[in-house]
């Protein structure tokens, strides 16, 4: 996630990556099971666990449940996710935990993507024609599974016009589909994306229309700047200024989560 490129300067005292990690950490509720991907989403989960959600459980699609994470992993299969867990299983068990109707309801998934549409549907597969793509990305990985199964998801994005699009080039992972009832019509479980956290601010989804709106700008960033980087209209009327990271949040993120700044840079 190239979140520090082509973006306004962060205010003194913290970087935009730190702001993003902390904004995401604040979304995690105590007691939740947190599905983590690689990179900043791992830091968000680690920060939440150390700050506001001590009873949350960090959990990886590779099968690790409640990893200790003494060092930050660089992939979800990093041996660092395997140490001191409650259980080391495999992919089959991990995804079943999310599809399971009892445990799945407790899971929050953190995802990233190459493109997002106004309903929070994601593309992490290809830009251009699928059969001869202009840019090929990694593909779904577990993203489609998580987005299909779990109760709520948070999405990390780099905020650029070409990434916030009306129409995805490839539909990898389901968000709210086409609005209210969209998931149910397809046969998907309820639940869906709750927040999109970018290097500029935080977007949420309207309860009625399930369309993305601007919920918060980071300090020093205006709604207009955000609209300019978005390929569709964002309702700005509910936008607040996102509280900057507190000293405690920063301290914990830097000292406990990524002291080597492997992810924070």
């Amino acid at each position: 996630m190239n979140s520090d490129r082509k973006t306004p300067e962060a205010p003194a005292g913290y970087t935009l990556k730190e702001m993003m990690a902390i904004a995401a950490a604040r979304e995690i509720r105590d007691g939740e099971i947190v599905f983590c991907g690689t990179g900043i989403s791992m830091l968000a989960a680690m920060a939440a666990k150390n700050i506001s959600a001590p009873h949350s459980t960090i959990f990886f699609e590779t099968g690790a449940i409640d990893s200790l994470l003494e060092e930050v992993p660089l992939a979800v299969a990093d041996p660092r996710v395997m140490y001191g867990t409650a259980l080391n299983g495999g992919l089959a068990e991990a995804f079943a935990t999310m599809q399971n109707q009892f445990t799945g309801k407790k899971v929050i998934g953190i995802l990233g993507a190459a493109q997002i549409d106004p309903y929070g549907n994601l593309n992490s597969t290809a830009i251009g024609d699928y059969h001869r793509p202009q840019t090929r990305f990694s593909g779904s990985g577990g993203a489609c599974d998580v987005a299909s199964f779990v109760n709520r998801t948070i999405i990390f994005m780099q905020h650029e016009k070409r990434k916030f699009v009306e129409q995805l080039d490839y539909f990898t992972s389901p968000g709210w589909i086409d609005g209210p009832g969209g998931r149910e019509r397809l046969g998907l479980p309820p639940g869906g994306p709750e927040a999109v956290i970018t290097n500029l601010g935080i977007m949420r989804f309207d309860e009625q229309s399930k369309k993305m709106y601007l919920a918060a700008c980071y300090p020093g960033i205006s709604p207009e700047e955000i609209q300019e980087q978005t390929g569709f209209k964002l309702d700005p009327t509910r936008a607040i200024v996102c509280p900057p990271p507190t000293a405690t949040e920063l301290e914990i993120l830097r000292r406990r989560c990524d002291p080597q700044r492997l992810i924070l840079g």
Partner: protein
Amino acid sequence: MKPQSDHSRLTTLPEAIAELVTDGSHLSIGGFTINRNPMAAVYEIIRQQKRELHLYAHSNGQGIDELVGAGCVRRLEIAYAGTGRFAPTCVRFRQAVESGELQVEDYSNYQMTLRFLAGAMGVPFLPTRSGLGTDILTKWGFSRKERQQDDRLPEHKLATIDNPFGDWGGAGKLILVPAINPDVTIIHVQEADRFGNARIAGLTFADIEQAKAARNLIITCERLVDDDFLRREPERNQISFLHTDAVVVLPWGAYPTACYGVYDYDPDYLHRYRETARNEKAYQSYLQEKIITPEDHFAFLARQDKARLQRLVADPETGYARGLDRKTQEMTP
């Protein structure tokens, strides 16, 4: 040959690959991104210049990218082609897809896992709620016609079904994913015995399902253990000799990916690999000099820097190399 409990399946890597992997084989390899990929076997496949492989992968990462980069692969069914922070999208894979050299069929990680599980269970499909409404369901990498003409491909990429039990289980509709039964699966494990019983430490990923789904199974292992060793704690074994065709002893057999409890991944190798892979000329010389020229795994190993390997040796408590310097200049993105 399989169900003979006192029949040794020990062999060498060149022999196992020569005998069981042929041009056009349908192959799957174990591991996940930067962990427990059967890299020594991958490099031997490259050395033996196998061609036209049909590869099945969930997120096997490094091994897949090297097979693709060396031109061994014609078709790839995959969920995720990346190696985490080292290459969010595998470089040679990306290049091969964008240039049209490699045909890809996309699935999700769970779908691929279920496809191996279906193969292991002996059923033609398994159901999931994942993928409904997405292009994974509707956009096919292999055309309908191609599927009809090839009896080693199911005629549909995926299928949907209305729940015959009404709304039982809260799901009115499901996706059915077709089973995979590869010609060969290759996995790398920490411990095996000469009969082909195996024990994996750390996460198992989808190795067990991949192993049981295959017509032929090659197990490469860090340590060969005594005949009765694994039988003393059979709860800890994941694969029995019933499924195994070849056992090869290969210390550092997952290198440069990690092998939990034995060694860590090599950040320098993986970073350099990504940078090298971006440059065609550099990549060809990497392939020739680092992979093909050494006559086997042991020659390949001998060319690695001893001190660097030593730094990767796992701490016995945590299973990885504590405090390993994993930051390089290339890390920023």
